[in-house]
């Protein structure tokens, strides 16, 4: 917990700093004649992230020093990380495929593939659970919303 607080606090404060020093000056625009400049609220938000993220990181650091915990762990469970990561990769690849093929046309494979990877082996479950949602989407988009196949 102190380790995760330390690193997450650093990331939040770092993002706040990035926003304050690079994003807001370059992309928030400015209006010297406005009574409330457009960068005011983003600046307040960035400072909130810096201060609060900094306090969270500092709290984590103090607890790590008190408990003698190292900021990085030597034990990395790659299998657990892999299990946590693969759904992100799977959805990321699905989004890439969706730039070429409509979701309705490959939805059956998207659901079926994930069901298989999650351990489902009964063919009728894979078929039923893959086809029914796709048919529902087809009816919703084509007949109810009339936006065509998505």
């Amino acid at each position: 917990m102190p380790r995760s607080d330390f690193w997450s606090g650093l990331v939040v404060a770092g993002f706040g700093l990035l926003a304050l020093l690079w994003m807001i000056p370059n992309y928030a625009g400015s209006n010297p004649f406005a009574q409330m400049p457009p960068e005011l609220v983003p600046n307040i938000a960035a400072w909130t992230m810096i201060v609060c993220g900094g306090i969270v990181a500092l709290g984590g650091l103090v607890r790590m020093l008190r408990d003698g915990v190292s900021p990085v762990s030597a034990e990395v469970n790659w299998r657990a990380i892999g299990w946590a990561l693969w759904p992100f990769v799977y959805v990321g690849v699905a989004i890439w495929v969706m730039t070429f093929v409509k979701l309705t046309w490959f939805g059956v494979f998207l659901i079926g593939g994930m069901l298989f990877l999650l351990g489902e082996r009964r063919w009728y479950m894979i078929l039923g659970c893959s086809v029914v949602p796709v048919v529902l989407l087809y009816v919703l988009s084509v007949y109810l919303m009339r936006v065509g196949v998505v």
Partner: protein
Amino acid sequence: MDLSAVGAAAAEALTLASFIGIGGGVLLGYVVGVIPGLSRSVAISIAIPMTFYMSPYIAISFLIGLSKGTAAGSAVSAILLNAPGEASSAATALDGYPMAKAGKPKTALQIGLIASVIGDILATIILIFVAIPFARVALMFGPYEMAAILAFALVFIAGLSGGNIFKGLAAGGLGIFLGTIGLDNQTGLPRLTFGYTELMDGMPLIAVAIGTLALSEMFVQSEKLRYDRANMSVQLKNDPNDHVTMPILRRIMPTILRGTGVGTFVGALPGLGPSVGSFMSYGMAQRAAKDPSTFGKGEPKGIAASESADNAVIPAALIPLFGLGIPGNVSAALLIGAFAIHGITVGPLLLRDNPELLYSIFAGMILASIIMLALGWFGLMVFAQITKVPPHVVIPIVIFFCLAGMMLQGYGTFGLVILIAFAVLGYLMKKYDYSFVTFLVAFIITPMLELNLRQSIILSRGNWEILLNRPIALFFIACTALALVMLILRTVRTGKPAANAPAD
């Protein structure tokens, strides 16, 4: 109250389209609620794109019906599986599961249903009688008061909706920062769009909501599958002695009324959410009992206390929404998005500009409660079967509907990239205990907060002394400062949040 508008609202609620829309919402909510891991906010965020083709009244009533259905449905899995569909039904499982294991699953489910429906209807009636006078008063508020109230609500939610206050405020800061993306409405210039024309209208709300709530939750659930795949559902049998009786009803009625009061009070306060309401009500019922030792062993009052409060929170959370335009929790924040999609500004102006719609929504809410009772009573056996659906079957289907929701919205590949980016963000926020509730509420109310702040600064010409003539604004500024100091002190002293429950 305009009686002709009330009559028209009642007539609209009794149309076939209304029955289908609201009934569909409650049914879908029930199914989602029964499945552990699928929360109310996940269901609403995925369902919003489905409401595009509906009229504003049907769309909003559908979503409120969905919300009510999930609250009632989550009790089914809490009682039969000991795995609450929602965090707020965890208190129901404390007595519901032992009662089901003792051979009375149907009785436990019926007690939960009756408590849910009574709590829901009474809180809806309170909402109707409180929200309208509340909105009338709020119409007199200017930008000073609204800016102060919004800031107070944000700090309150950051402190109470899980995680420590600093993490809550950091999440709020990120929400505000991302909420400022888009065209600046004073200068008309793009702000923080990084040259992407797709961001001119701001970060797409549906992508942010579905990514942070639904898709990230599916990633969390799929990670949990590695460690836990057990399903220990209690079977529902046709036992003639297993049903709720009049003596039981008479015994639990005072508990239901107390639970409704607690749920309504908690729901009306921003940031607390149904989990706090149901546990608070459960604790009060236990303290009020002659023999508190029966609680946790299948006590009917335990189920009644938890379920009545859980369901009373949902209509009560709409009091600040309809009265002030402030979302008290994620579900209410998502409703703001749904209203915006249909071109309606929610808050006190709704009463002035569109009273018929407001009355129709109230009528639809009462109808949803009645449908909930009928569906729950007659569909008990069917819903009990849904508890057998394993999570690994649910996850791919929900992910598919998350992607489908974005495509239906018409954002294309850009929207999908935003979606997965926010899913990663939501996953990390859940993993590292940063309040995604505060993040989302901050993201949604930022345009309103900024507009009111800007109007205040322009009207006052930068002279802060004008606040001395604005006692309500001054009161809320003082409350914000006080809440901030108290929440920080509490976090520093105890190292724990004031209430560690998601305000869903």
